[in-house]
């Protein structure tokens, strides 16, 4: 079994163990209501994390996801509010908005060969301002977050039976993306672009097009999450999503996709997301202060990264020793 499979297994085991421990420690944890809430929270972060995983596989980063959530949420709410058109039109508008912003990110990064961190940070600033500008204002010019009563919109934020709608959407998205990554040429190109862009280009891969596509997907996922968020809260606020980047990054990193690129998959991200949501929920259920959440998450990230890095060094040392043995057996050659 490959290292990543082992890692995933360990993580899943830990998740189950922690879940079990929490169930014993707090009676409120293992109830249908709470688990559904937990899954809903996880899905909200998870949808964005799926897109972010692809970005990370290409060794890039997208700092604008929070702002994309804000703007696309504003976009879809304003659309509903001003036009009173049926809600099934608004979803494509919001998603298209997310793709457009993602395209913009990808275009600037590849065309001008600028670092991803800087470009997406700049976009973030632009979008944060844009969200405030397009926000619905009342007669005196103050931002007034409007309340949307469209029934389809409500359905989005609601549940089928006890299961929130967002949960199966998240898992479906994750499965589809995993499939895409592992079973299509385009998916292989994403890995190649991240692992060794020079080699990828030499092999004929259009790395620029791959990168633009990846950032578009990231924007799409953020927009999808925004639709669910505003549906759940029946409104959109310019502050939506700001600060959510940390949770997304945590979920993806814990799930086993490193910043160095070329490796990673969606299953890891799914488990990482569930892990994160469980920890956060558990902390509250145990009655601890919510301020412990970021400390716990930070601590986990540090441990995860240290173990990953240590293991990588360990594996390389083992491989190097094996190679040297082989050389000695094959005969001296320097």
């Amino acid at each position: 079994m490959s290292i990543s499979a082992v890692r995933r297994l360990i993580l899943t085991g830990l998740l189950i163990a922690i879940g079990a421990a929490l169930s014993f420690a707090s009676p409120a944890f293992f109830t249908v209501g709470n688990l559904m809430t937990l899954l809903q929270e996880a899905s909200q972060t998870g949808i964005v994390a799926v897109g972010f995983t692809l970005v990370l596989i290409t060794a890039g980063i997208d700092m604008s996801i929070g702002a994309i959530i804000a703007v696309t949420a504003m976009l879809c709410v304003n659309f509903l509010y001003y036009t009173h058109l049926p809600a099934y039109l608004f979803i494509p508008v919001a998603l298209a908005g997310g793709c457009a912003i993602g395209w913009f990110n990808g275009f600037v990064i590849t065309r001008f060969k600028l670092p991803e961190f800087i470009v997406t940070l700049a976009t973030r600033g632009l979008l944060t301002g844009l969200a405030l500008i397009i926000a619905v204002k009342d007669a005196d010019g103050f931002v007034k977050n409007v309340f949307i009563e469209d029934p389809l919109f409500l359905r989005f934020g609601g549940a089928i039976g006890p299961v929130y709608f967002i949960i199966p959407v998240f898992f479906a998205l994750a499965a589809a993306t995993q499939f895409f990554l592992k079973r299509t040429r385009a998916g292989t190109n994403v890995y190649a672009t991240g692992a060794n862009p020079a080699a990828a280009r030499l092999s004929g891969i259009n790395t620029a097009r791959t990168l633009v596509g990846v950032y578009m997907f990231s924007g799409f996922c953020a927009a999808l999450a925004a639709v669910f968020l505003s549906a759940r809260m029946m409104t959109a606020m310019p502050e939506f999503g700001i600060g959510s980047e940390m949770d997304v990054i945590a979920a993806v990193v814990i799930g086993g996709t490193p910043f160095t690129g070329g490796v990673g998959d969606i299953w890891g991200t799914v488990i990482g997301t569930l892990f994160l949501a469980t920890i956060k929920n558990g902390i509250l259920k145990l009655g601890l202060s919510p301020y412990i959440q970021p400390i716990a998450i930070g601590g986990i990230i540090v441990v995860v990264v240290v173990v990953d890095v240590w293991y990588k060094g360990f594996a390389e040392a083992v491989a190097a020793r094996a190679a040297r043995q082989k050389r000695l057996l094959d005969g001296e050659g320097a």
Partner: protein
Amino acid sequence: MNGMNDDLLLCAGIDKSYNGPQVLSGVDFSLRRGEIHSLVGENGAGKSTLVKILTGVTQRDRGSMVFDGREIPLEHGRTAAQALGIAVIYQELSLIHGMTVAQNIFLTREPLLPGLRLIDRGKMNRMAQELIDRYGFRLRATDVIDGLSIGQRQTVEILKALSGKASLMIMDEPTSSLTAAESAQLFEIIRLLKARGITVLYISHRMEEVYQLSDRVTVLRDGRKVAVLEREQISPAEIIRLMIGRSLTGRESGNRMVRSSGEPVLEVEGLCAEGRLVDITFQVRRGEVLGFGGLVGSGRTELMRTIYGIDPFQAGRIRYLGKPYVPSVARSIAGGYGFVPEERRLQGIMGGLSITGNIGIANLDASSGRFGLVSGGKELDHARQAITLLNVKPADPDIPVGNLSGGNQQKVVVGKWLIRDLKLLIVDEPTVGIDIGAKEEMYQTLRRLADSGVAVIIVSSDLAELTRLSDRILVLRKGRIVREFAEGTVTEEDVLMASSGILQEVPP
């Protein structure tokens, strides 16, 4: 001369210059179908440029090219080259880590499931294994690249080219990181390719390989084609003569070697470093210039780094100034033992700092007073000293070193050491990237240094420089000392022959 349809490639009158000196002039070059053809020449003779033109990485200025009967336009680019079936085997440049052999072979050309746009993994692995087995390699299609040795990865590169229907395979110094067994395997592969009608263009410094493999050899020198030898005419000695072939004036017809009579400053005995050096024994004495020659990859720089204390070693003894010495960089610096590295831009200077800064940083102990505070005045003095001693131009201690010319930068690097009470100085490639005038100055500086009693070790790939500067020359090959030139006259040819393993000698 054979018929036209036997020629896969015909080049005539190829010219190329990169905004200045002419890199290739009027080169004629041809390849026959199904032959193993070697391209040889010294560093800078133009081999890699010719390869780049063939593969479309760069474009020729003038000259005609006909491949497989088709005229190739001047703008011939990479995609066109690939489409024609011209493949280059790089060391590791075009493999994707984290993926398997099969994935790498079929990258962007993966077989798809019928009707769907999904990769047929089973089929891909089968096709890859088929290819592997056809050539008799010991690989599995599902092996991950990360776990393969360099030789095996090279094989994957070759397979990748084969799967793309290559008709010409260019291999550039393919054996430099391979073990002897892996090299032998590679030669087998090459012969196999030839048997299947694929033309192989082989570029190497290693004469015995060229001798073993080639059907024909083209020799380049200073950007011109000097000769094309058929199989019967190939002999390593002849090739070397053609490669060097300078008209020899009296001065350069040979340099006298001199045995120094000073006390030994550094004594090395039985030094072994795994994978790099084997049983190195030598001494360097006060006032002598000891030169190390050898081909690229023979271990010269590795030896210098090991005796200086940068890289570790597993066996052997070193004595410095008569006392047992365990090399460490700090100890070496403190003990008057200096090292001027090969890549001065990377390892020798801090381009953003001034001359004073650069020299100052290397000599903080000399310019700081009590409590470790650095004296700006002392630093300036040191800088001025160095500038005068070495004639650095412009003579301004505040200029950022990055703005100086290559020659002057090198002087600053050397200058760092002059302030100290030097006993031994190692200089790796003293004049690389420096123009002729500055080279002369550097030679004089080094000579003066030796005359003043410092032991100087130089490493140089420039044979003329090596033979001119050195009082004694040791030649390395594959991590061992294979020859010592300590008396009589030595020519560049002699050194090159020894480096190539042709003039062996039983050590005294």
